[in-house]
């Protein structure tokens, strides 16, 4: 498994930019074509559907803001994967860390609901990150002492986290009306939104984190040491880099970031903690990070593309009478063609 981590492809800019651009355009076209066939088979007009997707996302200011809203959890959970990936850790556990982060943040929102928002929001943010970090500490620790592979543990713990959230909601937090969710958060526990849209402060968090990630990796000693560990962990250890400490800390940082994504979902987006509120947000982050090769700019672009598709799916459901999940087909086709692309590092053995 450690082998696959090392072979995470970096987006290479050695290829001429134009030929890459054409290649990506062709791949997108291929994905659209495949989905068009599926739409045709199920008796819908593909051209009209694509026009719907476009007009509901990039065609209006509000639509565009919805795309940005959808990007927030993707950006943050992708970073939660990208940072551990730099030291060769495969964090498939974003989904679980996101749930626990959301639960911790909700706990803060319910406990301190009398407080003004300048106290409440930082407390919720910190709690969310703490929750995610604690959840990631277990796989990080088990990996650092060489006991269990982090891919397996994070994957298992993904299945546990939503059930703990369910336990908390059903057992303690549910509103008097409804057993599958908590009371709506008080206004002070909501992240501020911008321009009369649903775009919330989480976007600022995401962008700051992206820039920080880029800066740390490029300009600090820690970034260099992390790359050294990712390149060859044993060599790094022999050169005096504290391997164990790094593995645990980095895993916890990844978890904290995924927990932050959970916090922004409950505080910024929903305003309430719902049972099973995320179907695959954390997994989406993993995919985005992997397809972007862990590169900050790539993560941003990939999130944008995926967000356009998922947001467009909302309208497809309303106007074309298709189940919302169908948009996952278009998403999958897009990812399939990206995955199947001729590898940039041909001839290099993994």
């Amino acid at each position, binding site marked *: 498994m450690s082998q*696959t981590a090392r072979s995470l492809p970096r987006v290479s800019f050695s290829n001429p930019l134009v030929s890459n651009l054409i290649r990506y355009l062709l791949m997108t076209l291929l994905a659209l074509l495949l989905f068009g066939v599926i739409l045709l088979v199920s008796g819908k007009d593909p051209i009209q559907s694509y026009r719907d997707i476009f007009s509901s996302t990039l065609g209006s200011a509000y639509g565009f803001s919805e795309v940005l809203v959808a990007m927030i959890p993707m950006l943050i959970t992708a970073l939660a994967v990208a940072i551990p990936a730099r030291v060769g850790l495969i964090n498939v556990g974003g989904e679980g860390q996101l749930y626990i982060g959301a639960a911790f943040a909700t706990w803060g929102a319910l406990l301190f609901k009398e407080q003004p928002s300048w106290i409440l929001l930082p407390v919720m943010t910190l709690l969310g990150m703490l929750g995610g970090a604690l959840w990631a500490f277990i796989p990080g620790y*088990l990996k650092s002492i060489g006991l269990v592979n982090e891919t397996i543990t994070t994957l298992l713990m993904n299945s546990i986290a939503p059930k703990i959230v*369910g336990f908390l909601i059903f057992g303690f937090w549910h509103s008097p009306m409804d057993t599958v969710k908590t009371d709506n958060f008080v206004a002070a526990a909501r992240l501020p939104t911008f321009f009369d849209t649903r775009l919330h402060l989480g976007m600022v968090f995401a962008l700051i984190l992206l820039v920080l990630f880029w800066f740390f990796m490029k300009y600090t000693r820690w970034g260099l040491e992390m790359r050294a560990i990712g390149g060859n962990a044993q060599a790094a250890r022999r050169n005096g880099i504290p391997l164990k400490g790094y593995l645990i800390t980095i895993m916890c940082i990844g978890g904290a970031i995924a927990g932050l994504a959970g916090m922004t979902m409950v505080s910024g987006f929903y305003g309430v903690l719902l049972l099973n509120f995320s179907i695959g947000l954390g997994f989406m982050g993993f*995919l985005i990070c992997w397809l972007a090769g862990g590169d900050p700019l790539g993560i941003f672009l990939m999130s944008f593309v995926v967000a356009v598709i998922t947001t467009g799916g909302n309208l497809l459901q309303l106007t074309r009478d298709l189940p919302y*999940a169908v948009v996952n*087909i278009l*998403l999958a086709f897009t990812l399939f063609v990206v995955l199947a692309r001729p590898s940039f590092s041909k001839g290099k053995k993994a």
Partner: protein
Amino acid sequence: MTLLSILGVLSSAIFSGTSLLYTTLGEVIHERAGIVNLGLEGVLLISASSGFAVTVLTGNPYLGVLVAMLMGGLTNMILGYLVIQRGANQLASGLTLMFFGFGLSALIGRPYVGSKINGLPRISLPGLSDLSQLYTSLFSFDILIYLVIPVALLVWWLLFRTRWGLGLRAVGENADTAFSSGRNPRLIRYQALFLGGMLAGLGAAHLSIAYTMNWTEYMTAGRGFIAVALVIFSRWHPLRAIVGALLFSGAVAFQLLLQSSGVQVSPFLLDIIPYVLTLLVLIAWGGNRKQSAPASLGRVYHGTE
């Protein structure tokens, strides 16, 4: 608590464990050949929806089971193309397959939400016919339940007692060595994926055609991931997978028992038990190389050009 309620709980545990065991056996096969399939959830959904749709359309549940199996195998071929032919990352490809399954199954199943079917016929155990009607109805199972243990044995025999199985395991341990001893790693991995997909399809068919007898979106509710966990729990061995599936359905049964006896334990906490057990088992066995995963699990075979 009556004997009847205990038996009822047992019977429902058997029902819920069967689809899981088929799925786990499927995953055992492709992981033995070196391929992790995180898209199992999607494979299950596609198989469950298409099997159910065919059963509604034709009125023949056996045809539904057959189609579900085929769809399972075919869906896995997508993963095969990506990870075997194109050398794509297995985890990312699997997760993409999962999202594909979410979408395609919703599309396939959409017209059949709420449809009624005659599921797989139930066959009573011989010798129980002199019991009262109440008991026999609890212990009349469909053919897929009777077949699941023999299938596990068959998978064990295939993997550990045939030349094909030896080759498959060799590919999972070290594809280059397998190649140099005259095997075709790519072909074997495709075969493993197809066979594993068909088994997952059987599990899905049991879920939608025999057990719940309906179709709802996301009806598999994480069974694909449970199966992946059970494969690890059973240390990539088909017979130990039986134990894993028993453990899981036992936890389900235990939970139902507690509920029916009025003990107040959150079902959510009980749902966690199998996962926590798996984690503990992994920790207990951790570091023991002999019992660990197939050596080249997750690795790309580049061939020898």
